[in-house]
């Protein structure tokens, strides 16, 4: 069975399996094999980031518009991209204490861009959709069960109470105190559910790795050596 698999796939599965086992070896204790895999992960991830940035951002956005405009559907060189290039170069002024204030310019540009974009993005993608979803009829016309109506009411009250908890301009006493206390209960349920989901997501990843080790590596590549698989 194994002889029909391409060599690079066999090699890839062996490498992936050994690295997976190397990481799992940490469950026993910290050891050199784990540390090698861990440091390799850091190096490979950093290299991946550099390559993707180089190929997906630097080449199409900076180099090609200047040196190979036809590749990005331009009639001639676009010298405007020299401006962000120069801004980016100013980042390196941090290495020269006398001129390190120049590194504020690219940071200011990125902060301005992100802040300006954040305002409409927060309104359109978070505030308005959540507001719209909250301000719905509790018992809409049609086939809605009393349980669903009660759940909708609970949701509405829950949102108001959670917001009351985050209202810090008045002391949490009286009605506000009661609402904020109920808000804490909703927050605790949300945190608990979030925790449960996080655990299950990690368990799902764990199952995926164990299945890889068993199906793709052990049963496909190792067991045939012993007459199994």
């Amino acid at each position, binding site marked *: 069975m194994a002889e029909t698999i391409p060599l*690079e796939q066999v090699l890839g599965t062996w490498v992936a399996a050994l690295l997976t086992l190397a990481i799992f070896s940490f469950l026993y204790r910290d050891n050199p094999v784990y540390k090698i895999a*861990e440091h390799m*992960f850091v190096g490979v991830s950093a290299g991946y980031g550099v390559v993707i940035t180089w190929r997906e951002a630097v080449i199409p956005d900076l180099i090609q518009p200047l040196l190979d405009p036809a590749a990005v559907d331009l009639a001639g060189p676009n010298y405007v991209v020299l401006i962000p290039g120069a*801004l980016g170069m100013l980042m390196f002024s941090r290495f020269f204490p006398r001129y390190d204030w120049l590194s*504020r310019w690219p940071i200011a540009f990125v902060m301005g861009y992100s*802040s300006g974009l954040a305002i409409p993005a927060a309104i359109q993608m978070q505030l308005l959709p959540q507001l719209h979803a909250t301000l719905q009829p509790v018992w809409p016309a049609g086939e809605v069960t009393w349980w669903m109506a009660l759940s909708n009411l609970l949701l509405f009250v829950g949102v108001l109470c*959670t917001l009351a908890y985050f209202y810090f301009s008045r002391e949490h006493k009286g009605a506000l105190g009661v609402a904020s206390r109920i808000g804490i209960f*909703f927050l605790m349920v949300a945190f608990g*559910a979030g925790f449960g989901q996080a655990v299950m997501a990690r368990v799902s990843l764990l199952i995926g*790795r164990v299945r890889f080790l068993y199906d793709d590596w052990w049963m496909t590549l190792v067991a045939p050596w012993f007459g199994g698989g």
Partner: protein
Amino acid sequence: MRLQIPLAITFLIGLFMAVQFFVPHEVFQYSFESLLAWVRIVGAFALVLGIGSLLRTHWDKIRRRRRDWPYSIVTIVSFLAMCVIGIGFGHEPGTVFYWVFENIQVPLDATMFSLLAFFIASAAFRTFRARSTEATLLLVAAVVVMLGRVPSALIVSFGDTAVGHYLHANMPDVSEWIMNFPTVAGKRGIIFGVALGAIATALRVILGIERSHLGGGGGGGQ
């Protein structure tokens, strides 16, 4: 001037980005796309700084023969190898870069995160105690959501009994209800707060009230 120019850049770019959203004209659309490319370019230079810092840390460790220094060689060699094969020979499917990504980076990434399953479970076992109403709600919600995802665990726990089968049949629905109603209520309150906070912070940055991000330059005068 050392502070005024960056503040002016932030104000002008921030104002443009906020306004362009409400003006669906092609000039604004083109400017938005150009600025997006500009940010990617500036980000690439920032990445060089970050990578430089990583390499300097590991190089320093090797040079001074600090504890565990041989592992720093692994990091530097892995990084350089990835850069050489990616920049030199392409990154499309079928290349060596892609092979390394699929067979080294992805398995390491997935296994690292799967390892957290053990640590989260062990931390939860040690710290989850129903000492108060809040703690009990958190505990119950977490347990119900987890069991709702794997209801067969209930059959294993309760055996082939009526209770086991009842819980097995209903736990996913209870879990779904918790996720769809009380959890959404709590999360929605947080999202409102986050959105309003993001808008307020963005306005403070654009208007120059918040300027801590410009304070890094030690040699820069005010």
